[in-house]
C-alpha cells in the first residue's frame, strides 16, 4: 500500500522515536518488591493522615550522636491498628544546628502533606513498611476527587502496582486510583488477612 505524501512527512520522526521508546521500556532491574497483601499483612497500623509537625532532634546512642526527625500525623481516617487522633513516628536523618544527617531513599515530610501510611510500631530507622512503599501520597484532582500516588509522586493505578516495576515517567493525576477505592481494597485485604 503506498504511503500518502502527508504520512511520508513523519517518517524521519517515527524511526528515531521508535528506537528511543523501545529502549526506554527495557526493564531496568529485577527485585522482590513488597506486594499489596504483604504491605497490609506486615503493617501494624494503617491510616490516612496529614503531617502537622516535623521536628528534627539529636540523640546520643552509645558513642554516636544521631539526628532523627519526629513526624506527627493528624489521623483523618484510622483504617487499622489505631484509634488515636494523632500518630507519631521517628525517622533517621534530619537537619539541626547547621548539620544534616541523610539516609538515601528515606522519605521526607513537610507540614500539610497528606499520606496513606502503612507502618510498624517497633523501633527502627524507618517505621514505614517496605521502606517507602508503605507511604502513599494523597492529592486532590481538579474535580475535587482525592487520588493516591506513590511516595515519590507516581500515580497508583491499582494496589497491585505497589512495589511493582515502575515504568518511569509520571502519568496524569486523573489516572491514579481514587482514595475511596483504595481504602475499599485495603479493607478487603484486611478482611482476607483476618486482621479486622
Amino acid at each position: 500500500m503506498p504511503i500518502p505524501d502527508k504520512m511520508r512527512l513523519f517518517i524521519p520522526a517515527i524511526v528515531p522515536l521508535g528506537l528511543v521508546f523501545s529502549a526506554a521500556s527495557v526493564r531496568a532491574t529485577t527485585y522482590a518488591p513488597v506486594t499489596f497483601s504483604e504491605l497490609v499483612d506486615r503493617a501494624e497500623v494503617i491510616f490516612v493522615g496529614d503531617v502537622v509537625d516535623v521536628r528534627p532532634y539529636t540523640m546520643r546512642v552509645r558513642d554516636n550522636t544521631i539526628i532523627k526527625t519526629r513526624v506527627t500525623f493528624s489521623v483523618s481516617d484510622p483504617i487499622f491498628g489505631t484509634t488515636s487522633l494523632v500518630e507519631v513516628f521517628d525517622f533517621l536523618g534530619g537537619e539541626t544546628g547547621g548539620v544534616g544527617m541523610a539516609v538515601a531513599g528515606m522519605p521526607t515530610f513537610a507540614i500539610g502533606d497528606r499520606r496513606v501510611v502503612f507502618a510498624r510500631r517497633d523501633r527502627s530507622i524507618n517505621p514505614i513498611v517496605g521502606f517507602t512503599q508503605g507511604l502513599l501520597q494523597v492529592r486532590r484532582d481538579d474535580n475535587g476527587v482525592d487520588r493516591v500516588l506513590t511516595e515519590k509522586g507516581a500515580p497508583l493505578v491499582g494496589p497491585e502496582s505497589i512495589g511493582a516495576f515502575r515504568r518511569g515517567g509520571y502519568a496524569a493525576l486523573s489516572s491514579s486510583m481514587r482514595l475511596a477505592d483504595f481504602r475499599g481494597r485495603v479493607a478487603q485485604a484486611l478482611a482476607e488477612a483476618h486482621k479486622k
Partner: protein
Amino acid sequence: MRARWVVVGITCALLFAVRSGSAYSPIGRQWTPGTGIVMQLQQGTPGAALVDGSPDWDLVTADALTTWNTVLGGVSFAATRDTAAPPAIPNDVNDVIWGDDVYGDPFGDGVVAITVSLYRVDDNITTEADVIFNRKYRWDSYRGNMRRASDGSALVDLRRVALHEFGHVLGLNHPDDSGQTVRAIMNSHTGDIDRLQQDDVDGVTSIYGPAKAADTMQSRGPRFIPHRPL
C-alpha cells in the same frame, strides 16, 4: 521539504526532552572538590571462600571503590583497613562495616544496606559517610545474575551493593524513585545489574566533572593507604 525539516526539528526536541527526563538523580550534596574520600574498610574475612575467589570482604569493597575511581573526576576514593577500630558517627572516619543495626536502631523493613551521610546545611558539603551492610542477609561476591543460597534465600552480592552504596556516598540518589526508567546500579532494588552503567557515570560526571585519564586508578588496582589513627 521545509515541512520535513520542521518535523525533524520537532523530533530532535522530543528526543532531547526524553533523554533529559531519563537521567541519574543527584541528591544535591557533594564532597568538596579535590577531596580524597578515605573509606575505612572493616568487614574482615568471610567464614568460607567467596564465589569469585576474593580472599576477604574488604578486597571486594576496595574493588568497588576502584571501579568508581575509573570514572571519577574532581574527587577520588581511597581505602584503609582496620577491623578493630570502633565505628561511630560522627568520628571523621567513613566506616564501611557489617551491622546488626544502624547505630542502635534496627534496619527498616527490607533494607539490605544503608549509607548515612553527614553534611553542612549551609553549603550541602558532605563531611562524613558511613556504609552499613545488614548482617542478617546471606552475602557473597559474584558476577552475573542474582543468585539464591542453598536454603532458597537471596544470596546478596556485596560488590554490586557496595557499588550502589558508594554511589550514595558520592551524592547519587535512586533514579527509579524519581520516575525514571534507566539501567543503573543506583536503582533502588538490587538486581541483575552488577556493574556501573552509563547513567551512573553521567550522574557522577554531572556532580564532579568528567574523569581525566591521569586521575583514574584503573591501572593501579585497589589503593590502600596506611591506617590513619583515630
